[in-house]
C-alpha cells in the first residue's frame, strides 16, 4: 500500500505500529522524497502480509494516526510453485486431489495442464499452486506428497533451496 504522512519525527514508526497490532508482517518499506511534493509530507510504500479479514481494521487504525492511504494493491497469494504429477489421475479423482489443496484456505491450485495419451495409460499433469507464505507452501506440498502416496501417483517437485 502507498501511504502519505506528515514528515515529522516518529510519524513513520506511528504508521507502522498498527500493522503489527493487527498481526501483519512487514516485508518491505520504501520511502522516497518526491521533489514536487510539499516539503513536510512523506510518501511511503509498504509491502506487507496481513491475516485474512484484517485489512479494514488496519485502514481504520492508520486513519486514526492521521495517515492518508493513497493506494492499496492487493496481491493475495505470494508464493508460486509448479509440480508435475504422473499416474492414473482421473481414476484417482483429480478434482479431489485439487480440492485437498484448495480447501486449506492458505493455498490454491491456480493452473492445471493435463495430458491424457490413451484411456488406460497413465496421464500427466502440471499443477501450479499459490500460497500466502513459504510455510504455507511447504504445508501444501506436504499434502500433495501424502495424496500422491495414497493414490500411487508420481510427484515431481521443483528443486528449491539453492539460494
Amino acid at each position, binding site marked *: 500500500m502507498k501511504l502519505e504522512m506528515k514528515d515529522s519525527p516518529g510519524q513513520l514508526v506511528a504508521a507502522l505500529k498498527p500493522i503489527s497490532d493487527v498481526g501483519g508482517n512487514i516485508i518491505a518499506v520504501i520511502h522516497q522524497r518526491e521533489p514536487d511534493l510539499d516539503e513536510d509530507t512523506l510518501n511511503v510504500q509498504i509491502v506487507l502480509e496481513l491475516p485474512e479479514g484484517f485489512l479494514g481494521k488496519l485502514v481504520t487504525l492508520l486513519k486514526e494516526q492521521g495517515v492518508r492511504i493513497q493506494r492499496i494493491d492487493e496481491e493475495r497469494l505470494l508464493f508460486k510453485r*509448479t*509440480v*508435475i504429477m*504422473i499416474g492414473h489421475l482421473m481414476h484417482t479423482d483429480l478434482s479431489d486431489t485439487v480440492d485437498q489443496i484448495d480447501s486449506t484456505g492458505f493455498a490454491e491450485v491456480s493452473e492445471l*495442464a493435463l*495430458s491424457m*495419451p490413451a484411456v488406460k495409460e*497413465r*496421464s*500427466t*499433469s*502440471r499443477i501450479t499452486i499459490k500460497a500466502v507464505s513459504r510455510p504455507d507452501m511447504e504445508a501444501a506440498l506436504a499434502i500433495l506428497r501424502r495424496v500422491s502416496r495414497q493414490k500411487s501417483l*508420481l510427484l*515431481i*517437485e*521443483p*528443486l528449491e*533451496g*539453492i*539460494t
Partner: protein
Amino acid sequence: MMKVALIGLGSVGRGVAGMLQKKDLGITITGIADSKSACMDPDGLDIANLLANKTKNGYCGDRKMSASDVIKKADYDALIEVTPTNALSGEPAIGYIKGALLRKKHVVTSNKGPIALAYKELHTLAVRKGVALRYEATVAGAIPIMHTLEHGLAGNEILALYGVLNGTCNYILTRMAAEGLTYEQALMEAREMGYAEADPTYDVQGIDAAIKLVILANTIWGNSIRLSDVDRTGIDLLTPDALRLAEEEGCTIRLIAEAIPRKHILRVSPRILEKNHPLVVDGTLNALTLETDMAKEITLIGRGAGSIETASAIIGDLLFINDRYVRHA
C-alpha cells in the same frame, strides 16, 4: 619411485595401467591381478605385455596366482582396487582393502560397494595403521569432488549438496526432452550407445545415485548413513508429457541427489529445474553443487564415467598419497 599393485583389469583397471605406462609419473606397477590370474615383480611389471595377454587370452598373468596373493605378498606402497562393485555385500573388495590396510599399505579404490557399506570400519582401520584410504573415483568420475571438499573447501561448513550423479539417467532425460522420446525408447538408445547396462535397474531406479549420495554424506558429515536411509524415486515412470509440460514453463527434469542435514533431507528424485540452472547438464555429464557457509555455492561439472576419466581420479589419489606419505618416508 612409488610402487603400486593393481587389482581388477576391467575398463577402469586397463585405463589406469595404460596411463601409468604412458605417463612418466614416478609410479611403477609391481603387482597385477584380474579375476582369473595374477603376477608380481618388485622391480616393475611389463605392462604392455600383460595388457596384450589380457586381450589375447582373457587373463593377464599366472593362473595359479590370485588377487589375494598379490595383496598379501607383493611389494607395493599403495593398492589400487578397481574390481566390479557389489552393492549388496561389498565383497570381495572389502576383504582386499582390509588385507592391504592391515599390511599398512595405502588404498585407492573406485569401488562404491566397500565405501558405501563399510566406510567407518575401513576408515578407522586406515587411521589406526597410519595409511590413506582414498576413493575419489567412486563419485562423479573425473570430477575432483573429494579433493575439493578436503582441500579447496577446507574449513568450510558444508550446508547442503545437490548432484546429478548418474550419467545413464541424465542421458535418458536429455534425450526424452530433446527428441520427445518415451522412456523405453531413450533407454534403448542409451544401451546402443553403451551408456546403460543390460539390466538398467541399478541406474534408472536411482540406486547408483543413492549409493554415491551415501558416500558423499558419510565423507562430509561422518554420520554413518546407509542406502536404506535415502528416500529414493527413479526415472523409469516418467512420461514424455512430463518433460513437455516442464519445457512449456522453461524448465526440464533431472534426477537430483540431495542432502541437507539441517532439514533431515536425504533424497534421490526426479525434479523440475529451470533450463538455465547450473545442474542442468546434457548427456552423460555429472554435476554437483555444494552450499557452504564461507564459499557459498560452488558447482562442479564433468565426466562421470569412462576408462581414462576414472583413471584421472585414481591417479590424482595416488599422486596425493605419493606426495603426502611415500616421498617423505
